[in-house]
Protein backbone atom coordinates (compact mmCIF):
# COMPACT_ATOMS: atom_id res chain seq x y z
CA UNK A 1 0.00 0.00 0.00
CA UNK A 2 1.15 3.51 -0.70
CA UNK A 3 0.92 4.43 2.99
CA UNK A 4 3.87 2.11 3.66
CA UNK A 5 6.10 3.92 1.19
CA UNK A 6 8.29 6.90 1.87
CA UNK A 7 8.02 10.04 -0.25
CA UNK A 8 11.35 9.14 -1.80
CA UNK A 9 10.15 5.65 -2.74
CA UNK A 10 6.94 7.03 -4.22
CA UNK A 11 8.92 9.51 -6.32
CA UNK A 12 11.17 6.65 -7.50
CA UNK A 13 8.16 4.55 -8.45
CA UNK A 14 6.51 7.42 -10.35
CA UNK A 15 9.76 8.06 -12.19
CA UNK A 16 10.24 4.36 -12.94
CA UNK A 17 6.72 4.01 -14.34
CA UNK A 18 7.14 7.05 -16.56
CA UNK A 19 10.52 5.85 -17.83
CA UNK A 20 9.18 2.39 -18.62
CA UNK A 21 6.18 3.70 -20.53
CA UNK A 22 8.16 6.34 -22.40
CA UNK A 23 10.36 3.42 -23.53
CA UNK A 24 7.27 1.42 -24.54
CA UNK A 25 5.87 4.44 -26.40
CA UNK A 26 9.08 4.93 -28.32
CA UNK A 27 10.02 1.34 -29.06
CA UNK A 28 6.73 -0.58 -28.98
CA UNK A 29 5.63 -3.15 -26.46
CA UNK A 30 8.00 -5.91 -27.63
CA UNK A 31 10.07 -7.26 -24.78
CA UNK A 32 8.54 -4.96 -22.16
CA UNK A 33 5.81 -7.39 -21.06
CA UNK A 34 5.80 -11.08 -20.22
CA UNK A 35 2.32 -11.80 -21.59
CA UNK A 36 1.11 -11.83 -25.22
CA UNK A 37 0.72 -8.34 -26.69
CA UNK A 38 -0.43 -7.01 -30.07
CA UNK A 39 -3.20 -8.65 -32.13
CA UNK A 40 -2.37 -12.06 -30.65
CA UNK A 41 -2.99 -10.76 -27.13
CA UNK A 42 -6.29 -9.24 -28.30
CA UNK A 43 -7.36 -12.48 -29.93
CA UNK A 44 -6.56 -14.48 -26.80
CA UNK A 45 -8.68 -12.09 -24.73
CA UNK A 46 -11.64 -12.35 -27.10
CA UNK A 47 -11.62 -8.79 -28.43
CA UNK A 48 -14.22 -8.16 -31.16
CA UNK A 49 -11.55 -7.84 -33.85
CA UNK A 50 -14.17 -7.80 -36.63
CA UNK A 51 -15.11 -4.34 -35.45
CA UNK A 52 -11.64 -2.99 -36.23
CA UNK A 53 -10.61 -5.11 -39.18
CA UNK A 54 -9.93 -1.95 -41.17
CA UNK A 55 -7.38 -0.77 -38.55
CA UNK A 56 -3.78 -0.99 -39.81
CA UNK A 57 -1.68 -3.72 -38.19
CA UNK A 58 0.55 -1.15 -36.55
CA UNK A 59 -2.36 -0.06 -34.30
CA UNK A 60 -3.14 -3.58 -33.10
CA UNK A 61 0.59 -4.20 -32.60
CA UNK A 62 0.49 -1.45 -29.93
CA UNK A 63 -1.88 -3.44 -27.72
CA UNK A 64 -0.46 -4.45 -24.35
CA UNK A 65 -3.59 -4.73 -22.21
CA UNK A 66 -3.94 -7.33 -19.46
CA UNK A 67 -7.56 -8.26 -20.22
CA UNK A 68 -10.58 -7.31 -22.28
CA UNK A 69 -12.72 -4.59 -20.63
CA UNK A 70 -15.24 -4.85 -23.47
CA UNK A 71 -16.08 -8.40 -22.38
CA UNK A 72 -17.69 -6.89 -19.25
CA UNK A 73 -20.68 -5.38 -21.03
CA UNK A 74 -21.74 -3.48 -24.10
CA UNK A 75 -20.75 0.08 -24.89
CA UNK A 76 -23.70 1.66 -26.67
CA UNK A 77 -24.00 4.02 -29.59
CA UNK A 78 -23.87 7.67 -28.57
CA UNK A 79 -22.19 7.11 -25.19
CA UNK A 80 -19.35 9.20 -23.81
CA UNK A 81 -16.38 7.07 -22.76
CA UNK A 82 -13.13 7.73 -20.89
CA UNK A 83 -10.13 5.41 -21.28
CA UNK A 84 -7.93 5.90 -18.20
CA UNK A 85 -4.29 5.13 -18.96
CA UNK A 86 -5.00 4.74 -22.66
CA UNK A 87 -1.40 4.03 -23.66
CA UNK A 88 -1.15 3.86 -27.45
CA UNK A 89 -4.95 4.11 -27.63
CA UNK A 90 -6.00 0.69 -28.97
CA UNK A 91 -8.92 0.33 -26.52
CA UNK A 92 -9.79 4.02 -27.02
CA UNK A 93 -10.11 3.59 -30.78
CA UNK A 94 -12.12 0.40 -30.37
CA UNK A 95 -14.51 2.20 -27.99
CA UNK A 96 -14.79 5.02 -30.54
CA UNK A 97 -15.95 2.51 -33.11
CA UNK A 98 -18.54 1.19 -30.62
CA UNK A 99 -20.05 4.58 -29.69
CA UNK A 100 -20.15 5.71 -33.33
CA UNK A 101 -20.26 9.30 -34.61
CA UNK A 102 -22.93 10.32 -32.07
CA UNK A 103 -20.66 9.31 -29.17
CA UNK A 104 -17.30 10.53 -27.95
CA UNK A 105 -14.21 8.93 -26.44
CA UNK A 106 -11.36 10.53 -24.49
CA UNK A 107 -8.03 8.77 -23.95
CA UNK A 108 -5.96 9.91 -20.96
CA UNK A 109 -2.37 8.95 -20.23
CA UNK A 110 0.32 10.17 -17.90
CA UNK A 111 3.11 10.45 -20.47
CA UNK A 112 3.26 12.89 -23.37
CA UNK A 113 5.10 10.26 -25.44
CA UNK A 114 2.19 7.79 -25.15
CA UNK A 115 -0.32 10.48 -26.07
CA UNK A 116 1.74 11.29 -29.15
CA UNK A 117 1.79 7.61 -30.10
CA UNK A 118 -1.99 7.34 -29.53
CA UNK A 119 -2.46 10.42 -31.72
CA UNK A 120 -0.34 8.81 -34.43
CA UNK A 121 -2.51 5.67 -34.25
CA UNK A 122 -5.67 7.79 -34.47
CA UNK A 123 -4.33 9.53 -37.58
CA UNK A 124 -4.21 6.11 -39.28
CA UNK A 125 -8.02 5.82 -39.04
CA UNK A 126 -9.28 9.03 -40.66
CA UNK A 127 -12.91 7.88 -40.38
CA UNK A 128 -12.79 8.31 -36.58
CA UNK A 129 -13.49 11.90 -35.60
CA UNK A 130 -14.98 11.32 -32.18
CA UNK A 131 -11.73 10.72 -30.28
CA UNK A 132 -9.40 13.00 -28.33
CA UNK A 133 -6.26 12.23 -26.34
CA UNK A 134 -4.81 14.21 -23.47
CA UNK A 135 -2.14 14.01 -20.79
CA UNK A 136 -3.39 13.71 -17.22
CA UNK A 137 -3.03 11.99 -13.87
CA UNK A 138 -5.31 9.17 -12.72
CA UNK A 139 -5.34 10.60 -9.22
CA UNK A 140 -6.56 13.99 -10.43
CA UNK A 141 -8.72 13.56 -13.51
CA UNK A 142 -8.96 16.76 -15.57
CA UNK A 143 -12.73 16.46 -16.18
CA UNK A 144 -15.93 17.84 -14.65
CA UNK A 145 -18.21 15.73 -12.44
CA UNK A 146 -20.60 13.26 -14.12
CA UNK A 147 -19.03 13.58 -17.56
CA UNK A 148 -18.86 9.96 -18.73
CA UNK A 149 -21.32 7.11 -19.32
CA UNK A 150 -18.55 4.52 -19.27
CA UNK A 151 -14.97 4.37 -18.04
CA UNK A 152 -12.62 1.71 -19.34
CA UNK A 153 -9.11 1.01 -18.12
CA UNK A 154 -6.61 -1.72 -18.86
CA UNK A 155 -3.62 -2.48 -16.63
CA UNK A 156 -3.38 0.95 -15.05
CA UNK A 157 -4.68 1.10 -11.48
CA UNK A 158 -2.06 -1.41 -10.30
CA UNK A 159 0.53 1.24 -11.20
CA UNK A 160 -1.31 3.97 -9.34
CA UNK A 161 0.23 4.91 -6.02
CA UNK A 162 -2.90 6.28 -4.39
CA UNK A 163 -5.53 3.84 -5.60
CA UNK A 164 -8.23 5.10 -3.23
CA UNK A 165 -7.88 8.63 -4.60
CA UNK A 166 -7.81 7.44 -8.22
CA UNK A 167 -10.97 5.37 -7.71
CA UNK A 168 -12.75 8.29 -6.03
CA UNK A 169 -11.85 10.41 -9.06
CA UNK A 170 -13.25 7.70 -11.33
CA UNK A 171 -16.48 7.75 -9.33
CA UNK A 172 -16.65 11.55 -9.54
CA UNK A 173 -16.44 11.78 -13.33
CA UNK A 174 -18.92 8.94 -13.99
CA UNK A 175 -22.56 9.82 -14.54
CA UNK A 176 -25.05 8.26 -12.10
CA UNK A 177 -25.71 4.77 -13.42
CA UNK A 178 -22.39 4.92 -15.32
CA UNK A 179 -20.27 1.77 -15.70
CA UNK A 180 -16.66 1.02 -14.92
CA UNK A 181 -15.18 -1.75 -17.10
CA UNK A 182 -11.82 -2.58 -15.65
CA UNK A 183 -8.99 -4.95 -16.51
CA UNK A 184 -5.99 -4.85 -14.20
CA UNK A 185 -3.18 -6.79 -12.59
CA UNK A 186 -3.73 -8.32 -9.16
CA UNK A 187 -1.47 -10.26 -6.84
CA UNK A 188 -2.30 -13.97 -7.04
CA UNK A 189 0.54 -15.15 -4.79
CA UNK A 190 2.51 -13.73 -1.91
CA UNK A 191 5.66 -11.94 -3.02
CA UNK A 192 8.79 -13.57 -1.59
CA UNK A 193 10.18 -11.61 1.33
CA UNK A 194 13.29 -10.52 -0.54
CA UNK A 195 11.17 -9.00 -3.34
CA UNK A 196 8.37 -7.53 -1.27
CA UNK A 197 10.18 -4.31 -0.61
CA UNK A 198 11.54 -3.76 -4.09
CA UNK A 199 10.43 -0.50 -5.61
CA UNK A 200 10.95 -2.07 -9.08
CA UNK A 201 8.19 -4.61 -8.36
CA UNK A 202 5.67 -1.81 -8.75
CA UNK A 203 6.01 -1.60 -12.51
CA UNK A 204 7.51 -4.90 -13.63
Amino acid sequence: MSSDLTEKEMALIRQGIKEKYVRVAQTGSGGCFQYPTGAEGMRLQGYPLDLVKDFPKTILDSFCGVGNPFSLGPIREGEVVLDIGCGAGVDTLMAARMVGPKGRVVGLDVTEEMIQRAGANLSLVPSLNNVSFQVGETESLPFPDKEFDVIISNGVFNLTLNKAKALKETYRVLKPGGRLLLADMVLVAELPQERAGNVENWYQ
Partner: protein
Amino acid sequence: MDFLALLKKAGFPSANFVKLTGFKSSPYTEGALFYAEKPGVTQEQEVSMSQKKALQAYEEFRGLTFGPGVLDLKTKYLIALGASLAAGCDP
Protein backbone atom coordinates in the same frame (compact mmCIF):
# COMPACT_ATOMS: atom_id res chain seq x y z
CA MET B 1 -7.03 -3.38 1.63
CA ASP B 2 -7.70 -5.35 -1.55
CA PHE B 3 -8.75 -3.71 -4.78
CA LEU B 4 -12.40 -4.79 -4.61
CA ALA B 5 -12.71 -3.30 -1.13
CA LEU B 6 -11.18 -0.05 -2.43
CA LEU B 7 -13.73 0.02 -5.27
CA LYS B 8 -16.58 -0.39 -2.80
CA LYS B 9 -15.18 2.28 -0.54
CA ALA B 10 -14.87 4.68 -3.49
CA GLY B 11 -18.66 4.52 -3.98
CA PHE B 12 -19.25 1.38 -6.03
CA PRO B 13 -21.12 -0.86 -3.53
CA SER B 14 -21.98 -3.51 -6.14
CA ALA B 15 -18.45 -3.74 -7.60
CA ASN B 16 -17.59 -7.26 -8.69
CA PHE B 17 -14.45 -9.26 -9.32
CA VAL B 18 -15.43 -11.07 -12.52
CA LYS B 19 -12.51 -13.39 -13.37
CA LEU B 20 -8.79 -13.74 -13.94
CA THR B 21 -7.72 -13.20 -17.55
CA GLY B 22 -4.79 -15.63 -17.69
CA PHE B 23 -2.27 -12.88 -18.50
CA LYS B 24 0.63 -13.11 -16.09
CA SER B 25 3.29 -10.44 -15.85
CA SER B 26 5.18 -12.38 -13.15
CA PRO B 27 4.65 -15.55 -11.11
CA TYR B 28 2.88 -13.36 -8.55
CA THR B 29 0.58 -11.21 -10.66
CA GLU B 30 -2.20 -11.90 -13.13
CA GLY B 31 -4.72 -9.90 -15.14
CA ALA B 32 -8.21 -9.63 -13.63
CA LEU B 33 -11.55 -8.17 -14.68
CA PHE B 34 -13.71 -5.98 -12.43
CA TYR B 35 -17.15 -4.52 -13.12
CA ALA B 36 -18.70 -1.65 -11.20
CA GLU B 37 -21.61 0.74 -11.56
CA LYS B 38 -22.08 4.16 -10.02
CA PRO B 39 -25.38 4.04 -8.14
CA GLY B 40 -28.04 6.42 -9.31
CA VAL B 41 -30.55 7.04 -11.99
CA THR B 42 -29.46 6.79 -15.62
CA GLN B 43 -30.83 9.16 -18.25
CA GLU B 44 -32.85 6.27 -19.69
CA GLN B 45 -34.40 5.59 -16.30
CA GLU B 46 -35.11 9.32 -15.88
CA VAL B 47 -37.01 9.38 -19.19
CA SER B 48 -38.93 6.28 -18.19
CA MET B 49 -39.83 7.88 -14.84
CA SER B 50 -41.01 11.08 -16.52
CA GLN B 51 -43.14 9.00 -18.93
CA LYS B 52 -44.62 7.22 -15.94
CA LYS B 53 -45.49 10.59 -14.34
CA ALA B 54 -47.18 11.79 -17.55
CA LEU B 55 -49.17 8.56 -17.74
CA GLN B 56 -50.21 8.90 -14.10
CA ALA B 57 -51.34 12.51 -14.71
CA TYR B 58 -53.40 11.39 -17.74
CA GLU B 59 -54.98 8.55 -15.78
CA GLU B 60 -55.91 11.02 -13.04
CA PHE B 61 -57.43 13.47 -15.57
CA ARG B 62 -59.38 10.64 -17.22
CA GLY B 63 -60.65 9.38 -13.87
CA LEU B 64 -61.87 12.84 -12.83
CA THR B 65 -63.47 13.53 -16.22
CA PHE B 66 -65.46 10.33 -16.30
CA GLY B 67 -66.21 10.40 -12.59
CA PRO B 68 -69.52 11.53 -11.06
CA GLY B 69 -70.60 15.01 -12.15
CA VAL B 70 -73.42 17.00 -13.78
CA LEU B 71 -73.40 14.93 -16.99
CA ASP B 72 -74.07 11.20 -16.93
CA LEU B 73 -71.42 8.73 -18.09
CA LYS B 74 -73.17 7.92 -21.40
CA THR B 75 -73.26 11.60 -22.39
CA LYS B 76 -69.59 12.00 -21.48
CA TYR B 77 -68.60 9.00 -23.61
CA LEU B 78 -70.62 10.30 -26.58
CA ILE B 79 -68.93 13.72 -26.25
CA ALA B 80 -65.53 11.96 -26.12
CA LEU B 81 -66.42 9.92 -29.21
CA GLY B 82 -67.55 13.03 -31.09
CA ALA B 83 -64.38 14.89 -30.08
CA SER B 84 -62.15 12.02 -31.17
CA LEU B 85 -63.95 11.71 -34.53
CA ALA B 86 -63.68 15.48 -35.08
CA ALA B 87 -59.95 15.28 -34.26
CA GLY B 88 -59.49 12.52 -36.81
CA CYS B 89 -58.85 9.74 -34.27
CA ASP B 90 -60.32 6.43 -35.37
CA PRO B 91 -62.19 5.10 -32.29
